[in-house]
């Protein structure tokens, strides 16, 4: 450690990197979780996160004591939106992702009865139900309930006023609740 102390001077590129590692990198897993929810695909999440971390590093000097996590999440989200826009411009049809029923038929054309029953559970899982919620509603719900950001932080990440955050959150909860209680009813019916 003493050698590092001599080598890294304040204001040097190494010191900037060390500061970035200390302040931003501990939030890597959270940023990855968020990217997974935005992209709904592991491969896209990898690309988005890598791009976002590079952009974060380049823009690190703009951070200046503001909220690290909200700042990083906003960059992740912007990278995701840019990637989506680029795909749309190129007219590419995205591959079906894991949550897509089609995905399984491509990989495993004839699942056994056991797989089918697991699949059934997954279909009803909350994660699956969340997929049906509109993206702008889903993201505020994830940011609040899973990442535990407050309204001000969510507003900073999604770049909308706090009032909009509040109405989206209420709508997101109502939408998920409707799908969730439908599942509970189906389960009750299945028990009979």
């Amino acid at each position: 450690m003493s050698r590092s102390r001599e080598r890294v001077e304040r204001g040097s590129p190494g010191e900037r990197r060390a500061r970035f590692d200390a302040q931003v990198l501990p939030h890597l897993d959270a940023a990855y979780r968020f990217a997974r929810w935005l992209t709904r695909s592991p491969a896209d999440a990898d690309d988005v996160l890598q791009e976002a971390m590079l952009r974060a590093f380049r823009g690190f000097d703009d951070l200046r004591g503001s909220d690290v996590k909200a700042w990083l999440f906003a960059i992740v989200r912007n990278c995701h939106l840019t990637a989506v826009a680029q795909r749309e411009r190129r007219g590419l049809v995205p591959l079906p992702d894991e949550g897509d029923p089609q995905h399984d038929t491509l990989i495993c054309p004839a699942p056994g009865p056991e797989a089918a029953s697991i699949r059934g559970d997954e279909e009803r899982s909350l994660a699956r139900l969340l997929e049906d919620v509109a993206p702008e509603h889903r993201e505020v719900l994830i940011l609040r309930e899973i990442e535990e950001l407050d309204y001000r932080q969510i507003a900073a990440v999604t770049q909308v006023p706090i009032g909009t955050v509040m109405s989206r959150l209420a709508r997101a909860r109502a939408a998920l609740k409707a799908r969730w209680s439908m599942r509970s009813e189906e389960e009750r019916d299945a028990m009979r």
Partner: protein
Amino acid sequence: MPCAETESRLHAYYDGELDALAAAGFEGHLESCAECCVALEELEAMRSALRTELPYERAPAALAERIAAALDREAAPAALTTLAARVGAARGPAPTFGRGLITGAGGGLLAAALAFFLIAPHVISPRETLLDDLVNAHVRSLLPAHLVDVESTDRHTVKPWFAGHVDVSPAVYDFTAQGYRLLGGRADYFEHQRAAALIYQHGAHLINVFSWAGEGAAPADTTRNGYHLAFWKAGNLHYCAVSDTGWPELLKLVSLIRDAEGQESHG
């Protein structure tokens, strides 16, 4: 169904976004409104389902290494080998650790995060040093195999372990039912003593509750590097809960611990 005005207040109250006065006002309303009470229970049922059922992905180790390499190229095209690269190389590709919770992803990067604190020039103010020590200890605990020294959800296992390994005897409780599962305990060293750390899991987040003996009042709650630090004092014991949970979620654990402790000392 509550009216729109009440509904937005209901959500804001539930999310801990109302100030003390408005929250008290809403609690007054709750006493006379069964519908809002039911709505509140439904919100809580859904939240706890989301926090327990949804998968918590960690950044894959290979991705974390790719990012570290890309940052190295960006930071200093031909110069410094960072600690991240060295640690990453020493650890080998994608190690898995047995604890189940930490799967090695991003471990090298987290190790790198510590480098800053180790090499940064020493800060003069004792409060600043303490805050750095606490965040540092929290970040270090997130490294693979650094989280717990004694792994147990049973307070009767953790408490005696503390007796032999740290200088203080903190309150040890499990709050799994309330969404804060006790994972175990750990010994840490700061404020010139062997301090105790209790580790709780809350949804996707880990919370360290540090305790050490000391004079003076509890420092003010604060946020540092995206981590909240909530302080309190019981007798001559200082406590600090550190996490990247939301503030209301962190303060809920604090009040659970304080209530349990209060009941024990009065009962």
